[in-house]
């Protein structure tokens, strides 16, 4: 795809969104190039499945296109809004995975038979995704935004519309819960227990 035009380069996301709402087709392309990688990345890291992540990315962008005519300039950042939308769409999908025991985890879809390290990495990623699916939605979101997206607690607080203290509590409890879920699989995942 062509690079976005120079005139858009310094425009804030919400200004470009306004232009899209007013009928500027180039604005849609600019926004897509800017936002889709972020959205797809967040969804892939949270779900551990690129096909599902692509569905989430498309759904999230569709919600953005639909809200564009009603978007109020200066009230919220498009990126903050999108983080929230993607997090909610992901936890919807993770919720559907609940009840599936870790023993029923699907085999990695693209194993590399000659690279045991690759298999182990895929297994680890799958284990994390399925463990995340066992968490309550808000804990899964807080942990993902903090440890997969690298956002700060104030940023997460804004995205989730909660206090910073609540974010700290959710991430701590979420990490604890993940550790409990994965505890029995440490050896299998190739992590030695240094406690004797």
């Amino acid at each position, binding site marked *: 795809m062509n690079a976005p035009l120079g005139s858009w380069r310094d425009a804030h996301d919400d200004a470009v969104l306004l232009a899209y709402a007013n009928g500027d087709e180039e604005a849609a392309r600019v926004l897509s190039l800017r936002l*889709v990688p972020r959205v797809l990345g967040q969804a892939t*890291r949270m779900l551990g499945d690129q096909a599902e992540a692509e569905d989430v990315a498309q759904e999230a962008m569709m919600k953005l296109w639909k809200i564009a005519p009603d978007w109020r300039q200066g009230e919220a950042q498009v990126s903050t809004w999108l983080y929230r939308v993607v997090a909610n769409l992901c936890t919807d999908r993770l919720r559907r995975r609940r009840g599936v025991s870790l023993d029923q985890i699907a085999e990695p879809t693209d194993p590399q038979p000659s690279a045991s390290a690759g298999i182990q990495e895929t297994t680890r990623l799958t284990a994390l995704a399925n463990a995340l699916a066992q968490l309550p939605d808000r804990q899964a979101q807080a942990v993902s935004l903090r440890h997969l997206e690298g956002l700060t607690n104030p940023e997460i607080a804004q995205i989730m519309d909660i206090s910073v203290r609540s974010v700290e509590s959710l991430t701590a409890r979420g990490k604890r819960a993940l550790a409990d879920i994965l505890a029995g699989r440490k050896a299998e995942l190739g992590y*030695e227990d240094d406690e004797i």
Partner: protein
Amino acid sequence: MKMTKSEDQMLDDLFALRRETVPVASDDLMARILQDSIAARTVASTPKPSFWQGFRDMIGGWPAVGGLAMAGVTGVWFGIAPPATVSNFASDLIGTSVTVDLFDDSSSFFAEASIDG
């Protein structure tokens, strides 16, 4: 209960591994998203029908509205200008008390009830 160091390290390692996941959006995905942007704007620009337009459509268009209006007007006309036969009956009722005997002596109801048993 706090996590052990090894549990913390395991999680940090898993998180770091996951953070390395930086997918590339396919051309197909981008095309679908751009297509959605056009579709969403087309829907947004289609004027929505007003309430009255929806009501007219529901009852069968303007001819039905005309019929409704005629019925409404006619009903009002009946109320304020009743036919002559009706108006006599109405004036007889108004201003007089009317006693209706629901159970007169000839009623078979009481006749049956008086049977011993």
